[in-house]
């Protein structure tokens, strides 16, 4: 990848207890691009994703070696403030997980935690975030309603708005559409396309057609290793590695 990288991993290994989940993973994530990570269950793609905002730190008996840099700074350095890191690297999960609060409060929560108290400023952030997440028109009349009353697809876009509210640089998405119907999925995919203008998106997906549709770069992982990473067109048209070929043509996995 010749484009400028926002995240770079160098020889990353990770163990859960004795089990090694990542083996010598070195990847560059290009800035303002969508990178998809694909691979069979248990190949380490979600583990790698969670390394990028140190979410694996929350799990007991995890050991990680190697280097991961964000904007050329080692995110595993002792001086790294994990709260700041997670502000810069937001995350959207498989199942929409809005707080049991109003739509407004869901989005305002992050900026408040980071010290913004001014109501007008919060209003502006909430509206802008909901607009960027392509859900503003659907919820602008009912911002004080419970977020739990939204449909699954709307809840997922609300969660994206909640992530955007703290102005991240990178958005991690772990199977963001697997709990959604095709129409809600299409809305999220359209949104991902627009998000890359301002953010870097890394998406983990089991759906190879989705990876092919939304991403600029694709990495294929297998048994904890990054087997191949390249432009999405190349990976899906003529992958270099036989393992990648066999996986994307459904011969295993």
């Amino acid at each position, binding site marked *: 990848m010749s484009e400028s990288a926002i995240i770079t991993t160098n020889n990353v290994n990770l163990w859960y207890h004795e089990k090694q989940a990542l083996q010598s993973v070195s990847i560059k994530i290009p800035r303002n691009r969508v990178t998809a990570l694909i691979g069979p269950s248990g190949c380490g793609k979600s583990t790698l994703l969670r390394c990028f905002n140190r979410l694996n730190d929350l799990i007991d008996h995890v050991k990680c070696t190697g280097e991961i840099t964000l904007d050329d700074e080692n995110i595993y350095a002792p001086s790294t403030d994990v709260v700041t890191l997670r502000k810069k690297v937001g995350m959207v999960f498989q199942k929409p997980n809005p707080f049991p609060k109003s739509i407004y409060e869901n989005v305002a929560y992050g900026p408040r935690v980071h010290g913004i108290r001014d109501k007008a400023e919060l209003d502006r952030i909430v509206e802008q975030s909901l607009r960027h997440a392509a859900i503003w028109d659907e919820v602008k009349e009912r911002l004080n309603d419970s977020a739990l009353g939204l449909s699954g697809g709307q809840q997922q876009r609300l969660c994206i708005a909640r992530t955007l509210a703290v102005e991240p640089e990178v958005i991690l998405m772990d199977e963001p559409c697997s709990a959604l119907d095709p129409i809600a999925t299409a809305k999220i995919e359209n949104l991902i396309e627009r998000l890359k203008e301002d953010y870097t998106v890394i998406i983990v997906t089991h759906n*190879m*057609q989705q990876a*092919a549709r939304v991403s600029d770069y694709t990495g294929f992982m297998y048994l904890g290793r990054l087997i191949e990473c390249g432009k999405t067109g190349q990976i*899906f*048209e*003529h*992958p270099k590695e036989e393992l*990648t*070929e066999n996986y*994307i*043509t*459904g*011969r295993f996995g």
Partner: protein
Amino acid sequence: MAEKFHTELNNLRADTLEMAHLGRFMLRTAVDALIRQDAELAASVVAQKEEIHQMEVRLEEHCYHLIALNQPMAKDMRVIVCTLKVITASLRIGRYGKVIANIVKEISDKPHIANLMSIPHMADLVIDMVDDAVAAYESDNLRLIDDFSSRDDTIDALRHSIFREGISYMMEDPKNISRCTHYIMVARYLERCADHACKIAENVQYMETGERVEIH
């Protein structure tokens, strides 16, 4: 599901080979009918026009169906893309056979001029190219097609030579004009068949390696 798709893909390739063999057979038979001035044999080629057309329609539909239902990727996608090209090339080769067969009817009343010049030799070389291109599609063996560029140059040179020779005979005697014009046209059709063999070869290369090559 992947297993079912791959079985269907293998069936598609087998059916496409059958069509390619029919196209090749029509061309070979038409050239034989021309050499032997056998109008009956030529008529049998013309009668196969509908059969090869029906095969084209059925196989193309099969390709579209596999794409729509399976969204193939990587080599699976390339196999279908290549197959679509093989179908088109095979139809064209068969149709050139039919066109040559139609010429046989027109010129079977008198002996050939100069034993058909180099047409029989040229036809053998073209049909060898078709055979090798189709065999490469069947076996994934790229060595069969690695010299196609120079073989195509030979075919182009032969067409040019037949053209010049035909002109000479026409200048010698205007009664030869009609017959030699047909010979020149046959050489042109054979050259086009070699081009279609090259198209198949280019697509087999893409199918196997993902790389686009152009055979000049």
